[in-house]
């Protein structure tokens, strides 16, 4: 049985199901209990699992992140709720110096099975400190896995996998998608890490897109279809590990690619994916791989400016047309 539920509900279900299954799982973060987070994603969980397993913290991100690491090392499986992705900066030491490295530094003796759930996404008029998409800086650190769900279905399946993983996993939910609905089976399912999803098959160009950019790519693909351009849309699902093979196979077929991610473009996720394509599908490419990240400016508050900073379907279409029509790009 499949019903339509919101991404928010999908996350809630994933956590509830896993917490029922495994009593060592607990939730920790700010206003996760009675308030169920400002986005109401966790509503109802404290009623079912009690304040012993749904733990409201003071505003101490480094503190509770560190505590999650210690709890994970000693038989618990914490799920950390970080209210805004922008607060990742505050937990970087505990996440990257401690959680990510403990298994390695201990020669495999200690494990850190924890999930850091946080969010990303601009255009909510929340300005520079509440709008960032910081997946790239986390993806750079060995020892962390990074998931980027693109729908309610993906969010549930990926989160369940994350919770069962024996490693620290960071999962970025797009906060603008919390109320977006998608079909989600009632039966249990998991989505494995490192298996990209071919959202739409196509012949002429590959659009690799993460999180909400998958919607942008799909919208672009529809428009391009009318032009007679057949776009394949690939959602990597996890950027660490990255399913290089599925992406490369697609590009070897289409010979063209655009990579779209909502993090800043400079030194961002699009650089990694584009450079892997350019290197490893070199002999198959008919055009340069185009990168589309968020503009390299702090996210501005003003709606007149903020909307200019994120990749749009129109811009994807424009870029796709250019390279599919064989216009020379950067031919200087």
């Amino acid at each position, binding site marked *: 049985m499949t019903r339509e539920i919101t991404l928010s509900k999908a996350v809630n279900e994933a956590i509830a199901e896993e917490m029922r299954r495994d009593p060592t799982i607990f939730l920790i973060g700010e206003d996760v209990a009675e308030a169920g987070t400002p986005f109401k994603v966790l509503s109802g969980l404290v009623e079912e699992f009690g304040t012993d397993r749904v733990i409201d913290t*003071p505003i101490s991100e480094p503190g509770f992140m560190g505590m999650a690491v210690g709890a994970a090392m000693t038989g618990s499986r914490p799920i950390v709720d970080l209210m805004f992705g*922008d607060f990742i900066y505050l937990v970087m030491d505990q996440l990257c110096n401690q959680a990510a490295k403990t298994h390695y530094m201990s020669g495999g003796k200690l494990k850190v099975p924890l999930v850091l759930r946080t969010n990303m996404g601009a255009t*909510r008029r*929340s300005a520079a400190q509440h709008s960032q998409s910081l997946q790239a800086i986390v993806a750079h650190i060995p020892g962390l896995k990074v998931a980027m769900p693109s729908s309610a279905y993906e969010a549930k399946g990926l989160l369940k996998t994350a919770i069962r993983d024996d490693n620290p996993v960071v999962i970025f939910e797009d906060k603008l998608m919390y109320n977006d609905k998608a079909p989600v089976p009632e039966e249990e399912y998991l989505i494995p890490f490192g298996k990209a999803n071919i959202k739409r098959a196509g012949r002429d160009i590959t659009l690799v897109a993460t999180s909400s950019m998958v919607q942008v790519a799909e919208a672009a693909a529809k428009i391009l279809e009318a032009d007679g351009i057949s776009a394949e849309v690939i959602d990597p699902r996890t950027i660490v590990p990255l399913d290089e093979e599925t992406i490369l196979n697609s590009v070897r077929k289409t010979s063209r690619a655009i990579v779209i991610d909502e993090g800043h473009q400079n030194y961002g996720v699009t650089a990694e994916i584009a450079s892997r394509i350019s290197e490893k599908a070199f002999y198959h490419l008919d055009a340069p791989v185009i990168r589309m990240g968020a503009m390299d400016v702090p996210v*501005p508050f*003003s709606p*007149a*400016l903020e909307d200019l900073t994120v990749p749009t379907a129109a811009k994807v279409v424009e870029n796709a047309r250019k390279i599919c029509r064989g216009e020379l790009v950067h031919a200087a």
Partner: protein
Amino acid sequence: MSANPKHNAEDYIRMYRQMVRIRAFEDNANQLYLSAKMPGLTHMYTGQEAVAVGICEALTAEDKITSTHRGHGHCVAKGAEFKEMFCELLGKEEGYCRGKGGSMHIADQGNGNLGANAIVGGSMGIATGSALSAKRLGNGQVTVCFFGDGATAQGLWYEVMNMAALWKLPVIYACENNGYSEYTKTAEIAAGSLTARAESFGIEAFKVDGQDVLAVNKITTELVERCRKGEGPFFLELQTYRYHGHHVGDINREYYRSKDEEADWKESRDPIKNFGKWLSEQKILTEEELGAVDSEVAAEAKAAVDYALEAPYPNAAEVDMHVFAGVEHALDYLAGGRA
């Protein structure tokens, strides 16, 4: 309410007007939100006016403050104009931050406001560094660091208190304890005592009724003076209350605080009402004069809102300006390395 004989009527009236201005600003901001004219959301300062005004009236324009996500009140109290503030709130070019900051970063930088901050506790280092700068440059400036009770859970505070104490910096940590951080009571997130925490670093700490503008102003005036003499830092815990929800969208809040509690604060501890009563008891302003202040401020606010609603948004070309000082457009610069 304790009179401070050194103050004259003019000061009292200005304090009253500034509190009324903050409330009027917030009422208008709330209306803009409710009528969907304001982008994003915002945190109302209503109820806490005596804190911002009592403190900022003890400072010069050169003295510095750092503000918070609940920062409109600090901004008004430090000397900002409504027009530029509403423009900022609406993302317009004439806003103090050219529309780039919005409610959570609003600041009249020219009057020593170093910025509102959307990271809880995020300005504690900035304020302490401003005090270090003032001490080194010998300019006599004092810095006040505003933050909420919730922010006391950020480790940064303890780090900078330690350094401020070691180096005797002219900074006043002003904790507005409004009883809640978001949807959680302070008692649930703060063990022990806040004043004891500051004292354990050798910092003098004071608990003050944050609804009494004169009491706030009196202690701050003393501490500012002592800071200028090199006797800082200090800690102030100001007991206060926010009338609205955590942010404008926080409407149904009975699950974390009762309507009775809210009514009680509004009835018996309203800083504006009580100070107005005192002003008329002291024959400083008549009821009519108080009313006139209210209407003047209301008119000022309306004019500013009307202006801001019509004001232009920043030009698209602005989007990559002000990323780097001295660089016109960041995108050209980042692509080519040319300023």
